[in-house]
Structure formats: structure tokens, C-alpha cells
């Protein structure tokens, strides 16, 4: 049991190791895909065995906390970890047939190396209980993420990557400053130890604690594209090749958010965050993001850019859940990360497929695509429906629960934000579906590039399953967050 129990650590190590092995291989995809697959299966075994169990920690190395680094394993970490592993594997599987057409065969090796590195660091961010360790992993993930943007060697990509890198470094600087404040206050880096040490001095040093909270919020906000700090995201996600966009939008922006969530819950605790005005700030930013992000998305002409702006709005939902400051709100934030991760990854994969097949980037060119590619367009519509909030699909469930949690906190007027945002979502996803299925064709005949349908199918099944199993998932997550 010990060995399976420490799977998270093993996953991170094996991913790093396999990443360093890739440069020596002639046909990297043949090695990478089985490795990722095997690790995904491993993580599912671990997940299914432990997700309902007690929370426990894995000690990395020979020292206990507060000196050593601990990995914390609860339903939250397991769920997000599973999401990351599964999506990465499916995206790589999908891109195996397509990636070289978009970027070129020679870059595929670099891409795979970076993806392995990226996933390892993302898992590190999710599982770690040590603030500084989290920071290091965040930096590694930033580098790797920039890397998978610039594998497509175009001017747009480099510019987007520079923008992302600079802003992101700013964010990590702020996070590091926050860590420094907490370390100066308490002398610990382990989240639970900091919490213990903060409780007695909470009222005395409240201003310092507030400053550190705001630092973390801004830092994680930049990296997770919280509304006014999102400016790097549309460029980066649009310029990147399809598989990279799927990973960036599905996973990379989620990791700092979960780091922030863990800081809120574990370091400060519900009592402390609810005493300050800090949560109102989070709610303000996220609420604005939910609406403005959708508005921006509506006015975009390129398909990928629209989906990217929609990510801004959806990250708003996640931070909105965190901003409610209750276990229910946090649980929905986590659930929405899962639901949105799957949906957005699928959407980006499909978008890149359409672009690949039609050779055009704007959403207007999708007219009549549904007749030529009914399978892809149907999945696209399903994802769109999930975003809009058609019942049973995950998007609806997060909205619904978010609303219930909002009513519970007594801020009924915030419901308006959720509803307006979902109407706006409809305003930009429905036209694509409608045009795709019901418009007369423009006469563009798609080329016959093969599309890997199996991973898309699996993603769709996952999407529906997440919706159907929302009850148990949410209750497990909420139990872990109290």
C-alpha cells in the first residue's frame, strides 16, 4: 500500500526522468505516449484507491516537515492530478497525428520534452504542501509553458511568449515576496505549520497578513489570467499550436489557481480570509472577468482567440468560487477546474482540427462544417453547451452550485453576474454551432488529413461523466476542503 500511496511523488519523478531521456530517442512520440499512458493508468489506480480515503502526506526525502518537503494527498489533489495526467495523455495522443503538420517534425521532440517537464511541474504545484517548493514548480511550469508556445517558430509566438514570460515572472516575483512575508512572520514554509503559527499572531499582524494575501492573489492572478491581469493570455493561447493551446488553457492556468486555493484554505484558513476585505477584492475581479471576458470573446473574429477569451471568463468562475470563502465555494472552484479543463482542452483540439482542415482561422469560415465533419462539430457543440450551461453537463453544474453557494453566503445579487455571464456565453458559442450545422456551405472542401477520433471520444465521455458524477465528486472534494 505504501508504494501505491506514494504514486504522486513517483509520477513527478518518472515524468522528469522520462523528459530527460527523450533527447536520446529517434522517435520520441513512440516512447512518450506509452509512458504517459502508463503513468495515467497508475494515477487512476492510485486515485480510485485513495480518493475516498483519509488525507495523508508523503514525505519527499528523509526529513519530516517543517524541514523537509511534504506532498499532501486529498481528494482535491487527486482529482486535479488525474485531470492533468489524463488530459495531457489524450492531447498528446491526439496531436501525434496532427502536430507535425502544424509545426514540423523536428520540433516534436522539443515539444514532448517540454510537455513532460510541464506536467511534472504542474503535478508538483498541485501536490506540494511547501510554499517554496510550489514556487519553484510554478517557475518551471512557466518556462516549459513558454517553451511549448515557441515550438512554432513564428514571430507571433515569440512575441506572445515574451509577453507571457515577463508578466509571469512579475507574478512569480509577487508570489515569492508573499512567501518571504510569511516566512518572516512565522519561520516556516510548510503550509500547515504556517497556519499553526499564524493563528496566535493573526490579530496582531493582520496588516502584514493582508499584504501577503494580496501579493499571492496578484501573483497567482497574473498566472491564472484573473481578469485585469489576463492580457497575456489571448495572445499566447492563440499563437500556440493546437496541442499547446489545449494544454495551456486546460491545465497550465489551473495550476496557480489551485496553488492559490491551497494557500487560502491551508495557510490562512477560512476564518482568516473571511475576516479581511480580501475576498471582496477577489469577487470583484472575478465577477468583472466573468462578464468582460465573455464580452471580449463575443467580439473576436478568430476562433481560437474567442475560445481563449472564454477561458478568461471561465477562470473568473473559478476565482469567484474561491472568493466566496466557504468550503462549498472552494469545492466548486475545484470542480469547475476539472470541468473546464476537459471542455477547454477539447475545444482547442477541435479548433486546431478545423483550422488544419479548412486552412482558415476565423470562426465565420466554419459555415457548414457540421455537414463535412459531423462528429467533430457535434463534440464542439456539446462543449459549447457545457459552457453555456445546458443541464447535466459540467458547466451547468458548476453554475448551479456556484449560485447555491452564493445564496448561502447571503449575496443574492451576485447571482446576476453568473446569469449574465452564462447568457453571454450562449451568445458566442451558439452562433458557431448554428453556422456549423445549418448554414449553407461556402464551397470550402476540407482536406483529408486524418483526425484521431479516439482521444476526442474519450474526452467527450469524460465530459459527460464529470457531469453525471458531479454529486460524488463534489461531496468528496468538499469533504477534503473543510
Amino acid at each position, binding site marked *: 500500500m*505504501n*508504494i501505491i*500511496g*506514494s504514486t504522486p*511523488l*513517483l509520477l513527478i*519523478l518518472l515524468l*522528469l*526522468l522520462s523528459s*530527460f*531521456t527523450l*533527447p*536520446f530517442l529517434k522517435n520520441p512520440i513512440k516512447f512518450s505516449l506509452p509512458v504517459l499512458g502508463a503513468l495515467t493508468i497508475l494515477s487512476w489506480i492510485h486515485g480510485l484507491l485513495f480518493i475516498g480515503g483519509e488525507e495523508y502526506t*508523503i*514525505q*519527499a*526525502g*528523509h*526529513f519530516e516537515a517543517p524541514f*523537509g518537503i511534504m*506532498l499532501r494527498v486529498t481528494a482535491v489533489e487527486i482529482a486535479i492530478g488525474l485531470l492533468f495526467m489524463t488530459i495531457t495523455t489524450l492531447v498528446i495522443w491526439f496531436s501525434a497525428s496532427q502536430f507535425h503538420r502544424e509545426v514540423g517534425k523536428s520540433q516534436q521532440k*522539443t515539444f514532448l520534452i517540454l510537455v513532460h517537464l510541464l506536467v511534472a511541474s504542474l503535478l508538483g504545484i498541485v501536490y506540494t504542501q511547501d510554499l517554496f517548493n510550489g514556487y519553484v514548480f510554478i517557475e518551471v511550469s512557466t*518556462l516549459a509553458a513558454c*517553451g511549448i508556445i*515557441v515550438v512554432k*517558430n513564428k514571430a507571433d509566438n515569440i512575441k506572445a511568449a515574451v509577453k507571457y514570460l515577463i508578466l509571469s515572472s512579475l507574478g512569480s516575483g509577487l508570489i515569492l515576496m508573499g512567501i518571504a512575508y510569511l516566512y518572516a512572520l512565522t519561520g516556516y514554509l510548510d503550509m500547515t505549520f504556517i497556519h499553526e503559527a499564524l493563528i496566535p499572531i493573526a490579530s496582531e499582524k493582520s496588516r502584514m497578513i493582508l499584504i501577503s494575501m494580496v501579493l499571492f492573489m496578484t501573483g497567482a492572478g497574473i498566472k491564472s489570467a484573473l481578469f485585469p491581469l489576463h492580457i497575456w493570455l489571448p495572445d499566447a493561447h492563440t499563437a500556440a499550436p493546437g496541442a499547446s493551446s489545449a494544454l495551456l488553457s486546460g491545465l497550465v492556468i489551473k495550476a496557480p489557481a489551485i496553488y492559490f486555493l491551497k494557500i487560502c484554505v491551508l495557510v490562512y484558513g477560512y476564518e482568516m480570509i473571511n475576516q479581511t476585505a480580501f475576498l471582496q477584492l477577489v469577487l470583484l475581479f472575478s465577477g468583472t472577468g466573468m462578464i468582460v471576458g465573455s464580452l471580449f470573446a463575443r467580439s473576436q473574429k478568430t476562433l481560437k482567440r474567442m475560445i481563449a477569451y472564454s477561458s478568461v471568463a471561465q477562470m473568473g468562475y473559478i476565482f469567484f468560487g474561491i472568493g466566496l470563502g466557504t468550503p462549498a465555494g472552494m469545492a466548486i472552484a475545484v470542480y469547475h477546474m476539472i470541468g473546464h479543463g476537459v471542455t477547454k482542452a477539447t475545444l482547442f483540439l477541435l479548433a486546431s482540427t478545423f483550422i488544419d482542415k479548412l486552412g482558415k482561422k476565423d470562426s465565420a469560415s466554419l459555415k457548414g462544417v457540421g455537414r463535412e465533419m459531423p462528429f467533430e462539430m457535434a463534440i464542439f457543440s456539446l462543449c459549447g453547451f457545457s459552457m453555456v450551461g445546458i443541464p447535466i453537463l459540467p458547466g451547468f453544474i458548476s453554475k448551479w452550485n456556484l449560485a447555491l453557494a452564493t445564496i448561502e453566503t447571503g449575496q443574492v445579487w451576485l447571482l446576476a453576474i453568473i446569469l449574465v455571464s452564462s447568457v453571454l456565453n450562449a451568445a458566442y458559442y451558439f452562433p458557431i454551432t448554428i453556422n456549423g450545422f445549418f448554414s449553407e456551405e461556402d464551397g470550402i472542401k476540407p482536406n483529408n488529413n486524418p483526425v484521431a477520433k479516439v482521444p476526442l471520444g474519450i474526452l467527450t465521455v469524460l465530459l459527460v461523466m464529470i457531469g453525471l458524477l458531479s454529486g460524488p465528486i463534489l461531496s468528496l472534494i468538499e469533504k477534503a476542503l473543510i
Partner: protein
Amino acid sequence: MTIIVQNVVRIIVPFILIFGSYVTVYGHISPGGGFAGGTILAAALILERFTGIKREFVFSKELCLKGVAVSLIGYGILKGIAFMEGALHIHIISWPLGKPGEILSAGIMPVLNILIGLIVMMAFVLLFDLFNEDHSMEGQ
């Protein structure tokens, strides 16, 4: 570069290399360690490149990349085993705790230090080469 500089560098570089190796190897019992040592080693090699000294044995880009990867794998395996042992509380291998002042007494510690030194050195040289010739992608 003038011949004076080149000759001075020719004389200095071996000493720097030795100093770097010293810092690397003694990492676990005195100030220093893999990173610091690796940086010093890299500084020596970069100094050579600056002054334009040609040697028979050059750290080419390919070699550096592979070297970094191999060292990382080695480091990863060793450190990984140590991590996993700690995590599972199994302790198959009882690592010696080491005696102050003895280099080879601390189990895998010196090995790890040397590997880090190699990684850092080659990574820096690689970076320098990349910047020097520009127009090529980052492969770190």
C-alpha cells in the same frame, strides 16, 4: 583578443577549473556545492570562448545537451530513489551519515554534487553558445 590576454587566460583557466572542481566536490562539508562549483567551471570555459582559444576538446552544443540530459537522468534516479525511500519509510539502503572532513563518507551526497556541477557547467556553456551564435531555439 590580444595574445597577452590569451596567454594569461591559458594559464589561469586550469586553476579556475581546479578551484571549481574543489568547490563542487567539497560541497557537502564546506561552503559551496554543485551549483557554485558548476558556475565556476562554466566561467572558466566561457572565458576561453571569449578570448577565442581553440582547444582539441570542445564542449559542442550537442555534447552539452546530451551531457546535461545524462547528468539529469543520473541525478534524477539517485535523488528519486532517496526521495522514494524517505517517502515510503523503507530505507533499503542505509546511507552513511558521513564524518566531518571526509569527502567520500556521505553516501550519495558527493555524487549528487558532482552531477549538479556537471549539469550547471554544461547548461551555462550551452546557453553561452546559444547566445553567441544567436538565431537558434532554446533547448534547456
